[in-house]
């Protein structure tokens, strides 16, 4: 760039600044901690009041929680005397020795102690399956579906229930309990409901009037009634509908109820995914001569399921929380084992119930929060890949 004559002339003038000014810092009130406070917490009188109110509320609840869970908590002890204020002469928070002593019961229920390695193995296999299918960069994800929907259910059944000919003692489902049952119920729910949900969703969008009718009837019926009544129906009426000698056991009945319920909700999630697929995809598939099932399997479902992954995970979170309802029909899930333990006279103290609920609360919070983060991350990823 060459200077023009005019510029040169200006450059001669002494009082014209030759260099730009040093940048000044923004006003005090706009940056730094004070600025942050002023813009984010104290921007108007109303906001000041709100900030103070919320701060007071948090100052009340957070120290209370920390005190209860950590500072005042009892960490060691053999029985209820360790956690009683009258005996210890101090404020007592959570009674962790109670939770510690009952931890095995919370995890396995009454599963025979010498067979519990089978449950651990099941947890391990399940963890592998979950990582495989949810981690989008995992190798051979095509095999993951077979692993999760065929290999895993069969192996788990053999492992948990027992198979005498290969030396695994039969363990009756009456003995199952705790986290094991919570996981089994929710896992069966998802493994069964996804294929059935897909079929129902396809049925609902089918051109065949009776197929559509039955799908709609089933979906709307199940979605219209509370899960508690579905579970009651499964546990009370199902045995009447099959001949006496095939009467399913208690856990199986609850599983049927949960699977029915989850299928109906899953069908609606999948349907939303199907609706998002442009019509051109269907027409294109038909134009290259694919049959209905080929079109669905090769073109439509892979796209539809991919965009529904976040919603499927959200449905699963709901299902995971809903498994607590099997408590009402007498299945020993995690919550039920806690309910049974907290009335144990050995640990009868005013804090036992709250400690038990804290354990369950933390368990569900950690799992559900992790899953919802995953769903959100996937959603963001998919949104990015959609943008062009």
């Amino acid at each position, binding site marked *: 760039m060459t200077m023009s004559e005019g510029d040169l002339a200006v450059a001669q003038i002494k009082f014209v600044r030759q260099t730009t000014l040093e940048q000044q810092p923004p006003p005090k009130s706009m940056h730094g901690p004070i600025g942050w406070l002023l813009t984010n917490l104290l921007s108007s009188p109303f906001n000041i009041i709100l900030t103070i109110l919320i701060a007071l509320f948090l100052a009340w609840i957070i120290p209370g929680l920390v005190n209860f869970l950590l500072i005042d908590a009892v960490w060691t002890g053999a029985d209820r005397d360790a956690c009683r204020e009258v005996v210890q002469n101090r404020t007592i928070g959570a009674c962790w020795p109670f939770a510690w002593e009952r931890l095995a019961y919370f995890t396995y229920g*009454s599963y025979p102690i010498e067979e519990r390695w089978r449950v651990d193995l099941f947890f391990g296999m399940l963890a592998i399956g979950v990582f495989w299918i949810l981690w989008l960069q995992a190798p051979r994800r095509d095999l993951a579906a077979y692993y999760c929907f065929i290999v895993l259910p069969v192996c788990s059944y053999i492992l948990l229930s027992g198979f005498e000919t290969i030396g695994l003692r039969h363990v009756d489902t*009456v003995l199952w309990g705790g986290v094991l049952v919570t996981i089994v119920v929710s896992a069966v729910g998802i493994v069964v409901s996804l294929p059935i949900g897909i079929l129902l969703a396809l049925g609902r969008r089918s051109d065949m009037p009776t197929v559509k009718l039955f799908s709609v009837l089933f979906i709307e019926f199940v979605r219209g009634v509370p899960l508690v009544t579905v579970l009651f129906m499964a546990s009370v009426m199902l045995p*009447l509908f099959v001949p*006496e*000698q095939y009467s399913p056991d208690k856990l199986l009945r609850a599983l049927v109820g949960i699977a029915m319920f989850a299928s109906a909700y899953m069908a609606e999630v999948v349907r939303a995914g199907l609706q998002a697929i442009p019509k051109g995809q269907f027409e294109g598939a038909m134009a290259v001569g694919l049959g209905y099932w080929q079109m669905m399997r090769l073109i439509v479902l892979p796209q539809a399921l991919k965009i529904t992954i976040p919603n499927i995970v959200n449905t699963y979170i709901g299902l995971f929380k809903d498994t607590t309802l099997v408590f009402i029909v007498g299945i020993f899930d995690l919550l039920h084992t806690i*309910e*049974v333990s907290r*009335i144990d*006279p050995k640990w009868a*103290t005013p804090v036992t119930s709250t400690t038990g609920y804290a354990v369950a609360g933390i368990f569900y919070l950690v799992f559900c929060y992790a899953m919802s983060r995953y769903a959100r991350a996937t959603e963001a990823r998919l949104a990015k890949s959609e943008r062009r």
Partner: protein
Amino acid sequence: MKRIVSVIALAVMFGATSASAQTLKTVKDRGILNCGSNGSLAGFGLPDAQGKWAGLDVDLCRAVAAAVLGDDKKVKFVPLSAKDRFTALQSGEVDVLARNTTWTSSRDTQLGLNFAGVNYYDGQGFMVRKALKVNSALELGEASVCVQQGTTTELNLADYFRANKMKLKTVTFATANEAVKAYDSGRCDAYTTDASGLYAERLRLANAADHIVLPEIISKEPLGPAVRHGDDQWFDVVKWSLYAMLNAEELGITSANVGEMAKSDNPDIKRLLGSEGNYGEQLGLAKDWAVNIIKQVGNYGESFDRNVGAGSPLKIDRGLNKLWSKGGLQYAPPVR
């Protein structure tokens, strides 16, 4: 192809005409007895920390298993709440329901049960805090009472308060555990259930000594094992398993001396233990059915003592449950 197979499988499952009620054969084929039991009532049905079941009702199921299968350990206990016990029996989930169940006419007729005798004569009572200074159930007007849902207790309670013109506030819970816990935490002034249950539950309260059981017994509660209506053979088997235990006590046969007693000359003993006649075969059982019961489970007196009587933490007096010959109500027809 897969679809066809599954359709056929379903068809077989649903369409198969259900075999007529042959519970005895089913149990023998299965090799295990499914017994509906309480699961949370000390003295009647409660598994310990190792999962081993004990109780008066549990012993009855073990006796049936010993009589039918020759081994009292071949029982699968299914813990049932008061609410779902009848459906479990009706649906065939359990073969016999021994879960401190009161014998009433409507349960015989409307619910389609058959009660195979009475293994414990009970009556309903109340438990209150000592601090309330209540000495009689008649002083409980206006009181809140915790009660378990779906029991005769719930109905008797309402009847009793109405008959005595007292106002009642019931708080109903689905399980006995919840009801007791609610009472213990002060939600109710009184807890009501069968008297035997009161003693058992009192042991589990945080401070057992702070509670008393009121003297009034407001109902008749004959508790007994129940089977499904319409299978007389199985009904007989359960009935006579109970009678065998009662007869054994009456004849002085215990689990310790049953071996020697087999050599006894007493014709009653010989008939019971199968060394004379074929009474076992008539029931569809083995000749030594009663020997198995007595050897493995014991007689009624032993079972009572071990589970609810002097030999147990409950220390309940035998009272009405003494043998008829000792002034009680327990009476078994003869084996003949």
